[in-house]
């Protein structure tokens, strides 16, 4: 049946892709998640850095979904924002993607395990027999919370992991459907203010402080066919990074982030912003790969150095 589907699909693709793809040669379709981490990209767009490189960035936001790489494969995106675990899994399964550029090194300070106050959850050991929420099973958050549990004296095998979307974690905690959650910045701030909740730990700090959880990536095929465009993209992104680094703590950055995340500016002002990492760090990626192997997420070995795009 998928052959039939494929036939129709191909027909549809031909109908659609010819006019929408070839029209503007200097357009890059980039898949993003509206998270504060992407501020350098948005800065580059807002201040015309991409335009000066002759690039038109067509943003395709998705909310927390892990469809960046599938979308690359399906040909919807030229470049996708995705995380290191997805990238490694893809490569291990024979999908040839390359990491182009990393993001602010803020993950360690922004992502936290939260729990109900007064229940004595302080370390991984306290989580035995409890339920912990992660946004996506067998992905980056899951991987690192398991390692954090191990490092702080617990055993992940004794913990139940449940997939809960980030926005639903706080309510699930309060309704006692889960006992702890590994949560991202906005909601960590919300939890910090909630009298019923507390911040337990920042697992990345304890597991791998320099971790680079997210990157821009593209397929090798695309990169090879568009070397020039990719180079210009990275050049403009670099200027975006510089702007970002220069504006940490300043009003321009807060209003930029509030604008593209659609968050209230008061919330954005409480976020922490860290400088941008200069390049994709192979050593850090190897640490992630080794963790994945230990958890059985990688069946084939992956040569990390070959995954990183070299200009």
């Amino acid at each position, binding site marked *: 049946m998928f052959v039939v589907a494929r036939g129709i699909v191909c027909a549809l693709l031909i109908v659609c892709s010819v006019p929408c793809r070839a029209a503007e040669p200097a357009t890059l379709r980039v898949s993003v998640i509206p998270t504060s981490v992407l501020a350098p990209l948005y800065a580059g767009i807002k201040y015309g850095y991409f335009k000066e490189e002759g690039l038109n960035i067509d943003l395709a936001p998705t909310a927390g979904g892990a469809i960046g790489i599938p979308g690359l494969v399906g040909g919807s995106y030229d470049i996708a924002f995705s995380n290191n675990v997805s990238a490694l*899994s893809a490569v291990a*399964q*024979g999908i040839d993607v390359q990491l182009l550029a990393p993001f602010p090194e803020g993950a360690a300070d922004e992502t936290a395990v939260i729990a109900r106050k007064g229940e004595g959850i302080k370390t991984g050991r306290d989580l035995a027999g409890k339920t912990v929420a992660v946004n996506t099973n067998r992905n980056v958050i899951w991987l690192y919370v398991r390692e954090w549990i191990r490092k702080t004296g617990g055993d992940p095998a004794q913990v139940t992991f449940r*997939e*809960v979307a980030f926005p639903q974690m706080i*309510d699930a905690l309060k309704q006692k459907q889960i006992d702890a959650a590994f949560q991202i910045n906005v909601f960590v701030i919300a939890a910090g203010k909630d009298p019923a909740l507390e911040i337990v730990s920042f697992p990345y700090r304890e597991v791998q402080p320099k971790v680079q959880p997210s990157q821009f990536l593209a397929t090798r095929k695309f990169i090879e066919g568009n070397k020039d465009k990719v180079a210009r993209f990275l050049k403009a992104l670099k200027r975006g990074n510089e702007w970002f680094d220069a504006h940490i703590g300043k009003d321009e950055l807060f209003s930029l982030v509030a604008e593209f995340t659609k968050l209230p500016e008061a919330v954005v002002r409480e976020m922490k912003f860290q400088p941008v990492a200069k390049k994709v760090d192979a050593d850090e990626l190897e640490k992630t790969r080794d963790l994945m192997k230990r958890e059985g997420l990688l069946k084939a070995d992956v040569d990390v150095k070959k995954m990183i795009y070299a200009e």
Partner: protein
Amino acid sequence: MSQRSEVYRTSLLGLLSPAIVLSVWESAGALGWINPILLPRPSQIVWSLVELVADGAVFPPLLYTIALFVVGYAIASILGIAIGVAMATSETLYGLLEPLVEILRPIPKSALVPVLFLFLGIGKTTMITVVVLAAVFPVLISTFQGVRGLDPVLLETARTFQVSRMRTIFSIILPASLPMILAGMRVALGLGLVLVILAEMLAGEDGIGFRILDLQRAFQIREMFAWIFVLVALGGGLMMLFDLIERTLVPWRGKT
């Protein structure tokens, strides 16, 4: 549907076209015309399926999905029939419930999934509620129409013979409107399945919907297709079961 049975009368003919499609797919894969990472060959998928069944890994998610669906569908059917009959036979209840039903009914139920997760939490209750909401309205409305469309003489006669209200409902109204009720339940079956899979995808706990999404995210495409095959079997099985029940309960249907 006599035309259907004609195709399947000689089972060989019915198998012909699926067999052709499968062999074209298989050979296209073997010849390297399609990317094996994105679309594995049927034989590879079947092999994954065999592994799933052999080590028993297929059963927990399958049972999970079936349980969620069956509970939700049963509640929806009972509620739909009960409310449909109540609204069709009592002016007061009609007045009380009609505006609420008219407000809730047109909402595409998929839009309610994230909302319900927020207010009912992330548990099975929410997923069952989603199935109930999706399935209840088609049943309710066709029951209502079925009962309203009954021959008034039938009800008059019951009244003349002073048959009690409950008895009228159970021995006259329900049997007479059964074909319409079943027609509604058929639509509800499809909608309920759509929503149970969606709810599993978004709730991320277990079930076939969750497996499919989870495997796609891990790029284990072959296993993902194996689960889709499982789902085809489940959906097909449920539809056949429904046909069978309908034919048993309303044997005169389809002979018009």
